[in-house]
């Protein structure tokens, strides 16, 4: 028979992992925020003389087909990607949560209506909708975000609704009602804290998906409009010359992969922590 490891140790290790990877993610966000200060050159300045230069001291990541500094563009792209992702995740989080809680708490017609709409949006595959909408709206970051966001809010709505439903009939809710608390107060102080954890966990896992979506759309030319720096579009711009200037593809690719991995890992670590804590 195997020796059982104490659950407390598992929880401690899980918590430590969340802190470490969380700190790394915060670091990435800080790099993105201070991109301008950290860039050695202007990311949009082109130069016919400096086309496709290999990495050097002055241009640590080399230059691309337009003579722009790849490092500066990667940093600027970090800003674009992370900023866009944050906005999208935040907005879909709020919209989805609000709809979900309303649906679960008030029930009745609101519930049926919201659930139908949710099912409807879930019936579409995300990327297909995103491509079609972005394609017809003509591209641009805003269109891409709307396209991706159209289906992303449904996850939060479902989670918020199911958790609201499960606590709605608890005693302390009834007690709060008797004490005279109004609907929105009950929601804010009692229901919301309860359902916050799974919602945040979902948001963390959505970050990776959103980044892949944004860079995917930009890669196709349906997202960010060049010359705005974004990793997906950078990879697309430079892939024709990958043999001559592999660094122009490599560095944005690495940046994409590393960032997505960090945030995905954070989502995983938080979920593992929750599972371990629940077992106690």
């Amino acid at each position, binding site marked *: 028979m195997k020796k059982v490891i104490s659950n407390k140790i598992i929880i401690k290790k899980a918590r430590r992992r969340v802190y470490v990877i969380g700190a790394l993610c915060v670091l990435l966000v800080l790099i993105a925020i201070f991109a301008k200060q950290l860039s050695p050159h202007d990311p949009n300045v082109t130069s016919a003389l400096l086309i496709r230069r290999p990495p050097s001291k002055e241009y640590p990541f080399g230059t691309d087909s337009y003579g722009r500094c790849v490092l500066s563009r990667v940093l600027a792209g970090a800003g674009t990607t992370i900023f866009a992702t944050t906005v999208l995740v935040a907005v879909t989080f709020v919209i989805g949560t609000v709809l979900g809680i309303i649906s679960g708490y008030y029930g009745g017609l609101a519930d049926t209506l919201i659930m139908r709409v949710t099912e409807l949006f879930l019936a579409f*595959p995300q990327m*297909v909708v995103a*491509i079609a909408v972005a394609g017809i709206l003509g591209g641009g970051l805003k269109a891409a975000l709307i396209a991706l966001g159209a289906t992303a809010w449904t996850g939060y709505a479902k989670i918020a609704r199911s958790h609201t439903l499960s606590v709605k009939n608890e005693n302390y809710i009834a007690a709060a009602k008797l004490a005279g608390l109004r609907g929105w107060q009950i929601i804010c102080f009692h229901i919301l804290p309860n359902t916050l954890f799974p919602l945040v966990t979902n948001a963390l896992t959505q970050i990776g998906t959103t980044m892949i979506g944004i860079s995917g759309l930009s890669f196709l030319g349906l997202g960010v409009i060049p010359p705005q720096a974004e990793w997906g579009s950078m990879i697309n711009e430079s892939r024709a010359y990958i043999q001559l200037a592999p660094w122009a593809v490599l560095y944005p690719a690495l940046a994409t992969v590393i960032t*997505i991995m960090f945030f995905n890992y954070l989502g995983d670590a938080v979920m593992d922590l929750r599972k371990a804590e629940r077992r106690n």
Partner: protein
Amino acid sequence: MSGFIGCCLMKKYVIKRLISLIPLLLILSFFSFLLLDMAPGDPAEKKLAAQGIAVTKEVIEAERIRMGLDRPFLTRYFAWLFGALRGDLGVSYKDGFPVMGKLMDGLGKTCQLAVSSLVLSLLISIPVSVICAVRQDSFFDNAFRILSFAGNSVPNFLISVLLMFMFCIRMKIFPVIAGDSFSGLFLPVISLAIPMTGRFIRQFRAEIISQLEQDFVTGIRARGVRETVVLFRNVLYNALGHMITIAGLSIGTLMGGSVVIETIFRWSGIGKLVMDSITARDYPVVQGFVLIMGVMYLVIGLVTDLIFVTLDPRTEITS
């Protein structure tokens, strides 16, 4: 008890689902049609421009009347809808060919990609996830968890670019332009399969582990049942419904992913068709694409749900 009640409730469930499909299909069609209207600019003008015809006010006006654009929105919608029900999705702006025909051709090619990558992913992910779940925390498990995490975190367009660089340009094993050959199938399929396999391994493994942790597994083992029987005929059987649902849902991701892959490798599937149409402002094709893809997705969703409910009727019978 089981046979009769099960069958009766099942029929009700199927009918309920089929009925709920109708409004969804209607709204899908409405949305697809709306998509065209949302496009900035005038459709008649876009059509003429797509064909390369010089536009003047009179020409546009004539074209608008010919296209029936002067009629109210709902009239146009229903006309389009009835046409769609007969299989007529209009004609392409670019070359005048029927949209339905172009989409169907493309769909066939895309299905080759989709089915191949799905099969490949399942062939790898099912055995791996079973072994990982049974040998949790072993070297094999940890190694594959890391691999599947990595595979799932890399966007598939990136994998395609890297694969193309490595195999086509550097090592010259595969042709750069996939064309429609069999050897052209390899790299696109692998690009699609890698993230999918990663995702499948993670999710299947989690589901199998959750089944292994159920009380009944202990009970079955306590009766002295052979471990292979416990694993395959019970644990895996229970996990199957969930696994099929996951696989079915990833059809949607496949359809989205194929757009990128087909564009990169120039595989003449429906994805490449849509991208080319977007570039050429050939909106009827894009519109038909959304409709066809949406219908496919809904139907596949229904089928996977039915399979799930057959295997595990618990949630439906209790509700």
